[in-house]
């Protein structure tokens, strides 16, 4: 199934283009971070950008039979899980502050410490799973730990978004939700392509079937870009200047 054109198309549309879009989304998150001064909002932007960088790198990760490379894959996924949880941990204080009643979100201040321990445990299990594949680790421990970290995180974010009085934050979180849904679809797309008769592991990443995964990746990157752009309202200076000239600032007598 694979040929040189298929290889090129797959690399460009399933790896290079999505990665460039993820990095562009990160660029905007980091730019907004630089422009903000409040610690909690800067942390939120920083971690959103970090997620973009890691996911962008992830588009180049394919498959390997080399044990060392597989361990590096495990380290990558462990880092990704930790950064995603860090992002959640940075969103909750922002969501709490935008709640006019300033309510605690499921006691996050106390809950976050055991959840960080859980997230580190998830990272270790992930590395161990790549190091010496074990069905007990892979089928039982990994899903249970992942579900406990991200299940609670998901509930906290939904509650925070519902209580928030900031439409912009809600918009950013909606796009982030879209990123998560599309990330699941990336795995579904991989599974679907792998199940096609005659498609080898190589074809999944380096031939025309990779375009399906690439399309979902591009949508994911777009959703992350929208989430990054919604971190704060950014106005084009040229438009604002034109507006200013048309309506000079008012002053009271």
């Amino acid at each position: 199934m694979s040929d040189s054109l298929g290889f090129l198309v797959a690399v460009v549309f399933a790896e290079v283009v999505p990665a460039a879009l993820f990095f562009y989304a990160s660029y905007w998150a980091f730019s907004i971070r630089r422009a903000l001064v409040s610690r909690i909002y800067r942390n939120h932007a920083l971690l959103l950008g970090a997620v973009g960088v890691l996911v962008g790198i992830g588009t180049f990760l394919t498959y390997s039979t080399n044990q060392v490379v597989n361990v590096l894959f495990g380290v990558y996924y462990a880092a990704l899980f930790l950064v995603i949880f860090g992002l959640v941990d940075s969103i909750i204080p922002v969501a709490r502050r935008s709640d006019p009643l300033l309510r605690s979100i499921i006691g996050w201040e106390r809950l976050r410490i055991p959840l960080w321990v859980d997230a580190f445990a998830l990272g270790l299990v992930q590395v161990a799973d790549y190091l010496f594949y074990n069905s007990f680790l892979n089928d039982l421990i990994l899903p249970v730990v992942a579900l406990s970290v991200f299940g609670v995180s998901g509930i906290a974010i939904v509650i925070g978004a519902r209580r928030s009085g900031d439409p912009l934050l809600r918009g950013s979180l909606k796009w982030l939700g879209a990123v998560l849904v599309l990330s699941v679809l990336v795995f579904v797309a991989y599974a679907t392509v792998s199940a096609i008769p005659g498609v080898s592991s190589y074809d999944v990443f380096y031939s025309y079937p990779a375009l399906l995964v690439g399309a979902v990746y591009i949508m994911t990157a777009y959703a992350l870009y929208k989430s990054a752009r919604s971190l704060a309202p950014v106005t084009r200076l040229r438009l604002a200047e034109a507006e200013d000239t048309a309506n000079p600032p008012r002053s009271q007598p």
Partner: protein
Amino acid sequence: MVGPPGIGKEALGYWFTHSGLTQGDFCLYVTRLSVKEVLQDEKGFGIETQQRVPLWCASDGGQIRYDVNDLAGLSFNIKEVLKQNSGRRARIVIDAISSLLMLNQPDTIYRFLTQLFSDIKQYDAVLLATLEEGMHQPQVLAAMEQLFDGVVEMRLYEEGLRVLPLLGVRKMRGSPPQPGYFNFSLTKNGMEISVHVR
């Protein structure tokens, strides 16, 4: 001060209070946060909070308890502390208008502020309030801006591929209109402002 969350409105409020305390003014800080949270924020901006602190009206840890459902109590408390310090210059920072607007009818807040301002004007006092951009209807923002003698806007602007935090003076009583924008940055010594040149 009008601007999106995180841009530095609160930081300006902290520096405004800090500067007042340094000059011997009486300072009152009204916040819906706890004192502990505000002090943590101030520390992040490099503001020394060991020696001089304002009178706190906060949800927790302050001398006066901030209750979001008790506007009359809030107004009474502000007037009382001003009365007790009537011989001094006073600075008041209210970092809670947006949450009050979200929890009450705009008319109620408008009346509350109108009454509060008329009381404050009997003293040698300046009030600085912060308002979150994007959380209120434009007409509510416009109504609030009409109430104040000055409106300073802090916004993020996109210039090419850069995001710039700029400050603009929308109106200031007694001053001519100031078109254009100012760059601002928060340093260990406070806020530094320079004219923005493209």
